[in-house]
């Protein structure tokens, strides 16, 4: 069946098979795999938190042992209670209830504090002060930015000294249970592709987060649970509109980088930024807008460059 045919169209069984095969072939072609479906299945099975799977097994074992009345009964029952509690405490156990075109994505990282001299975001940054800003930021910037950034090349891929690239922690799988934090996203998209370590979403992509709603033409996220050779990767997006409800902020930018360690969103190629106190309309090339919960800041690539942002539209 194609997208416009009705499920209530009565087709003979033989035709339904061919109809389904044509539909599936039209959707993904001959050799492609449904990467998103596979990902969802594996996330709920072989990549599932071991405790919840173990809990199910122990529950069965515990029940059996209880009936046999062996000495192991008490041990099994204790394990059942403990592991059930662990399973219930794991967020996202309702994943199976999500709609088919949605994906819950979880990044778990060490809560390592960002060194203050490298931090680009101040949680106390007053919103109105930034709205009135009209002079270069006295940000202690290192040397001039890489040519790729200065020339307007893709800032996401650039290795700039201003990016919030931190010494991100170990791979997801080796994280200790304590000291970790979770960033939960819900991502919906028209299309998704998967590589060994990242997932790429195309089309009208919407990322919903507790603080932000991100609309983008393309979003790339690391595969949860996959070991990262250079440390965990951030969420990257292109052609984005970031909306924050409280405090109200809307930003349009060419690219976005969400650093899960600091919880900051770094926007480059910013086209506009609107807050309750005003609208920043012009940004110099290379400027970065950093959103971090309550605060935000604008960072200029080099001291002495043109003031940025230059215009403030009330």
């Amino acid at each position, binding site marked *: *069946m*194609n*997208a*416009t*045919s009705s*499920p*209530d*169209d*009565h*087709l*003979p*069984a*033989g*035709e*339904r*098979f*061919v*109809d*389904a*095969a*044509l*539909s*599936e*072939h*039209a*959707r*993904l*072609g*001959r*050799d492609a*795999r*449904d990467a998103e*479906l*596979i990902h*969802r*299945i*594996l996330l*709920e*099975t*072989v990549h599932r938190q071991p405790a919840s*799977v173990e809990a*199910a097994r122990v529950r*069965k074992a515990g029940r059996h042992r209880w009936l046999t009345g062996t000495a192991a009964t008490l041990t099994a029952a204790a394990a059942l209670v403990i592991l059930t509690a662990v399973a219930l405490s794991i967020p996202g156990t309702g994943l*199976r209830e999500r*709609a*088919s*075109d949605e994906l819950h994505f979880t990044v778990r990282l060490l809560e390592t504090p960002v060194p203050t001299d490298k931090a680009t975001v101040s949680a106390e940054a007053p919103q109105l002060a930034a709205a009135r800003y009209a002079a270069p930021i006295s940000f202690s910037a290192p040397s001039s930015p890489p040519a790729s950034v200065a020339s307007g090349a893709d800032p996401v891929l650039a290795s700039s000294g201003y990016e919030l690239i931190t010494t991100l922690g170990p791979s997801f799988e080796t994280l200790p249970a304590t000291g970790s934090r979770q960033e939960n996203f819900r991502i919906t998209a028209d299309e998704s592709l998967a590589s060994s370590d990242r997932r790429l979403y195309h089309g009208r992509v919407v990322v919903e987060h507790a603080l932000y709603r991100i609309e983008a033409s393309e979003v790339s996220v690391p595969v949860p649970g996959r070991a990262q050779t250079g440390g965990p990767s951030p969420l990257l997006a292109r052609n984005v509109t970031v909306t924050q409800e409280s405090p109200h902020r809307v930003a349009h930018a060419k690219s976005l980088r969400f650093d899960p360690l600091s919880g900051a969103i770094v926007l480059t190629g910013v086209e506009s930024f609107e807050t309750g106190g005003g609208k920043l309309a012009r940004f110099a090339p290379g400027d970065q807008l950093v959103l971090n919960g309550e605060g935000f800041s604008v960072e200029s690539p080099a001291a002495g460059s043109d003031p940025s942002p230059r215009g403030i539209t009330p």
Partner: protein
Amino acid sequence: MHLLTIDDQPQSGDLDPRHPGDFAALVERHHRDLLVYAVALTRNDATARDVVQESFIVAYEKMDLFDVTRDFATWMRGIVRNKWREWLRKNKRYDLNENELARIDADIALWQNRRVQEDNSLFDALEQCLARLPENLRTVVEAFYYEGRSGDEVAELLHVAPAAVRKRLQRARTLLKQCLELKSDQTFSSPES
């Protein structure tokens, strides 16, 4: 006769679904055939994907019940069927009768086995059969299935009556079915070499 007796012997090769790595490989191998199966049953792409997802999860959770001497694909089709019946009950949809269900099941089973034995998929055969369709039928199939047009839109595109489009689609599906049966028969009746 395409309704061959399906040999319900292990078709998983060296893969043991009880091992996580092998289970992942089996998901890769079978998910698209099971999607075709689920789409044929539910006639809804999104529901079919949910059914297949749920089925693999149930299989993983109930792996202790899996008889390793049986065929994994057959077991999975059974779970998909059960999930589909659950969905029917919840949504009060009409049902296929048992003969129709058995026929669809046999169609999918043939191609699942062929994928395992020859690494040759239903979609390989489908492409070959599509290439053999008469031009007027292939045009309708491409517009309807591959370009996502409705029957009325196809009719308007081709300047024919909507009834003619329905007829051509029916004819195309019948010819494709026959072509696929011939290909599967050739495979399963050919002597081993």
